[in-house]
């Protein structure tokens, strides 16, 4: 079967869906049908690419030239497929959940909401399948623009400010990416993502390489939430919760760490990173971010903000795994993309369910809610324990690999960071569970569980977290895929 058009279709399907979504703005059920349909088709298309990816094959497609010699090109390589499966798979759950959420919360401008969401998913899959930096820039900026209406969705002061902050961070990052890519093109004559990097045989002064790397870091670090350029992420919690769940726990921020991976593994290459000691910068920044974000999370009473800082910390787990420059550490980082996605989306879903159902957003108001929302809080418990790294949930598994990876590279400090951070995670998640389960609640008699449209996705994503923890290869052989990807990034690209 010829799969060459599949990556393009996977990108386009949600973009095309925007048209019927806009046209059926007066018929909500029909409109949501289009979203669900697009999500299902997209996931199906991505799955078509999976068998090839597991064999280590890539599907390439060159469209028009964006600039002389620089095509708009898609390449569904194993890493891209890995990311695309996560993003498109979780979009299905988020779509159902969104319907329950926006209707339950009586949100305005729902058509704009669903349309923007669809564009975001197109951009995310485009990011996953970009074959070169120019194509990547295109989708990266598209994601920025499409997320903006979602961030400012409720159009209150706080949201508008958050939107401005978001644009200021991400547009600056986008410009740095443009400049850095142009410099790579100037120095190497190519901007194709190549396992092992494009600097083969190109000698640059150490400072030039350093400046270039820092530019890239600024460009991709914003979406990856690396401190000190993470500021937009907690602010963006002004967005409706499904947006926080899929975009600010999965699609947008994971595009950021995915970009880190592309830059480290496919632009600079692990050898160059090591030779110029560029990974040290990354390790220091990621380590600091992990600890600081966890500490800040303690202080947040707003549930979504606490989750946001937790996200900042966990994104840096992934960055740390990449920066270790060891195959096992890289595998752990890649696995944590999937693990954190399922767990954090569960937690955000829970936060949204609590908001829609009880109109409560502050942790101090959550006393006793486990009695009325047992399924939601049960899932919350699973997700939070997983993030703390308690087996058998999938957070443990990726963290284990991260620790092994640092030992493989003879580094002790990252291990200490991981252990301390695990304790801090326990520290900021368990008070929530304690309140929900053991403190007596007030005024909860008239409430029950949230609508099934929300609860079912929550339970499924929580179940996925456990299943992936127990059997990393259960679905789609994810673990093998991660191992294969990381092995191509070492030994000059030969597995």
């Amino acid at each position, binding site marked *: 079967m010829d799969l060459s058009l599949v990556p393009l279709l996977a990108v386009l399907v949600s973009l095309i869906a925007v048209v019927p979504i806009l046209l059926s703005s007066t018929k909500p059920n029909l409109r949501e049908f289009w979203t669900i349909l697009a999500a299902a088709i997209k996931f199906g298309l991505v799955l078509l690419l999976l068998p090839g990816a597991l064999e280590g094959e890539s599907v390439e497609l060159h469209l*028009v*030239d*964006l*600039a*002389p010699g*620089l095509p*708009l090109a898609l390449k569904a390589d194993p890493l891209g497929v890995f990311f695309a499966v996560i993003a498109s798979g979780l979009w299905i759950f988020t779509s159902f959940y969104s319907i329950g959420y926006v209707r339950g919360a009586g949100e*305005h401008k729902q058509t704009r909401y669903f349309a923007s969401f669809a564009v975001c998913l197109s951009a995310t899959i485009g990011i996953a399948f970009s074959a070169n930096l*120019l194509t990547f*820039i*295109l989708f990266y*900026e*598209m994601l*920025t*623009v499409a997320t903006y*209406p979602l961030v*400012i969705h409720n*159009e*209150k*002061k706080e949201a*508008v400010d958050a*939107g*401005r902050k978001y*644009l*200021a961070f991400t*547009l*600056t990052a*986008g*410009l*740095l990416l*443009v*400049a850095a890519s*142009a*410099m790579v*093109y*100037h120095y190497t004559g190519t901007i194709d993502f190549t396992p092992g990097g494009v600097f083969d045989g190109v000698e640059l002064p150490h400072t030039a390489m350093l400046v270039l790397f820092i530019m890239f870091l600024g460009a991709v670090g914003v979406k990856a939430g690396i401190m000190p350029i993470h500021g937009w992420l907690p602010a963006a919690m002004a967005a409706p919760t499904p947006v926080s769940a899929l975009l600010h726990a999965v699609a947008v921020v994971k595009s950021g760490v995915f970009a880190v991976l592309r830059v480290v593994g496919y632009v600079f290459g692990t050898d160059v990173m090591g030779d110029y000691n560029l990974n040290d910068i990354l390790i220091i920044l990621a380590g600091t971010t992990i600890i600081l974000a966890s500490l800040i999370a303690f202080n947040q009473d707003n549930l979504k903000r606490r989750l946001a800082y937790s996200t900042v910390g966990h994104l840096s787990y992934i960055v740390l795994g990449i920066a270790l420059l060891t195959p096992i550490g890289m595998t752990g980082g890649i696995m944590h993309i999937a693990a954190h996605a399922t767990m954090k989306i569960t937690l955000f879903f829970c936060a949204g369910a609590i908001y829609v159902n009880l109109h409560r957003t502050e942790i101090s108001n959550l006393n006793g809610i486990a009695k009325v929302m047992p399924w939601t809080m049960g899932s919350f418990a699973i997700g939070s324990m997983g993030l703390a790294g308690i087996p058998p949930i999938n957070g443990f598994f990726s963290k284990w690999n991260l620790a092994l990876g640092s030992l493989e590279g003879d580094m002790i400090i990252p291990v200490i960071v991981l252990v301390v951070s695990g304790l801090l995670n326990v520290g900021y998640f368990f008070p929530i569970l304690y309140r929900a389960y053991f403190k007596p609640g007030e005024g909860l008699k008239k409430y029950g569980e949230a609508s099934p449209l929300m609860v079912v996705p929550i339970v499924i994503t929580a179940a996925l977290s456990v299943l992936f923890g127990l059997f990393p290869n259960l679905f789609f052989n994810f673990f093998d895929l991660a191992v294969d990807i990381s092995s191509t990034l070492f030994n000059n690209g030969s597995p």
Partner: protein
Amino acid sequence: MIESHLPAYIALTFVLFSVLIPAFGLWRSELSHPIAVLGGGIAAGFSLFGFIDVINDGSIRYFFGGWEPPVGIEFVYDGLSAFFVLVINVVAFFVLIHSHHISKREFPGKEMPYYSLAMLMMLGFNGMIMTGDLFNLYVFLEIASLAGYALIAIGDRPAPYAAFRYLIIGTAGGTLYLLGVGFMYTVTGTLNIIDMAAMLPMLYESNAVFAALILMIVGIGVKAALFPMHGWLPDSYTYASSSSTALIAPIGTKVAAYILFRIILWLFGIEITDAVAPISYFVGVLACIGILYGSIMAIAQSEMKRMLAYSSISQIGYIIMGLSLANPWGFAGALLHVLNHAIMKACLFMISGQLRLKEGHSDISRFDDGYRKKYPWTMAYFTIAAISMIGLPPLAGFFSKWYLALGTIDNSNWLFLAVILISSLLNAVYFFRVLEKVYMMDPSKGQKEPTDAKRDEASASMLWPTGILAVSLIVIGFANAVIVGVLLDIFPM
């Protein structure tokens, strides 16, 4: 043998229609607009035809009356001039279609002189671009300028003052240019650009040549609104009637930029330009200051036309910066930006005209989220043009910046690269400010409910031209590789 006469036909079309419009307009005033559109359309058609011809068969040297220089005057229709002629005539054509309702509203009863002057101005612009003779260029420059002064004077109450100011500064600029031409003539004994260019290598480091170069750059710099000679521009563009601004703003400064291209890269060549002093770098620095100055001033404006006027100062800076880099990428980026900016600015000024027509003002601070409902298409086109101005892919504006960035990197000119990046952010500030106003409730005014408004879209004769221009930004974005391939071939070195 239509091909070989094309350059003359383009110019003569405008001459003919500038006479036809009064002839018919005196009889029936409402005929002025369709005749002007017809004239603009014919010229645009010729330009398109001619451009394709030049790309395929090479440049045309057209000798008027068969008299070869130095006796006669020639039109040089090569890649560069064909490209500029095409851009300005096509954009002008769309603006002319669009101006129907605005002209009726903003200066009722004066359509006939307006359109006739517009044709004369286009004649001047086309002549400036195509002529191969430096003095003849001055003549066309004055034709275009005089018509331009008159067009700017039609407008709000302060418009005549703005026009008068422009007239004084513009005449000074024209005179400086003429002085420079005089110097060159004394030294070389010819006014023909091609002949002169052949002689200049013998006059390497001549003081007269150096002085002439400075005089010409400063003189034309006034017309191009190159910082710090931009003073006339904001008032003129703000107070002139919306249709005049939409016609002059996208193309007027571009034509001046064209002359700088012709002088620096073709006539003198970059080596002679930089022989005595690094003139090109100096021009580039001025362009950079202009880019930042224009962007910052644009942020400070609340009147949309004035904001766009300052934005024009900034954008012309990109073009001249690309010229100053004098390498293929910078050159291609600059010319692509000529095309992109002409389309974007025409589209934006046309939209500001539409808003003035409908709302009676174009004051951004009074915009509200009702606009989204009243003018859904207009605002959609505005959004496309604005995002292209900010320079986000895949819209056209991104790619001119991409090539300019490549050009700065090729010269290791990190200062200019930084200016491009910073200015893009500033662009984002002043355009997202408008988008926020139009698409969102205004929490700072305590707004809780969306403004209720009925659909009240502009008429088709305005919507279609803006729409086509906006959509063409997307098309150019995806097709820019083809365009840039052509532009790289035009590069003279």
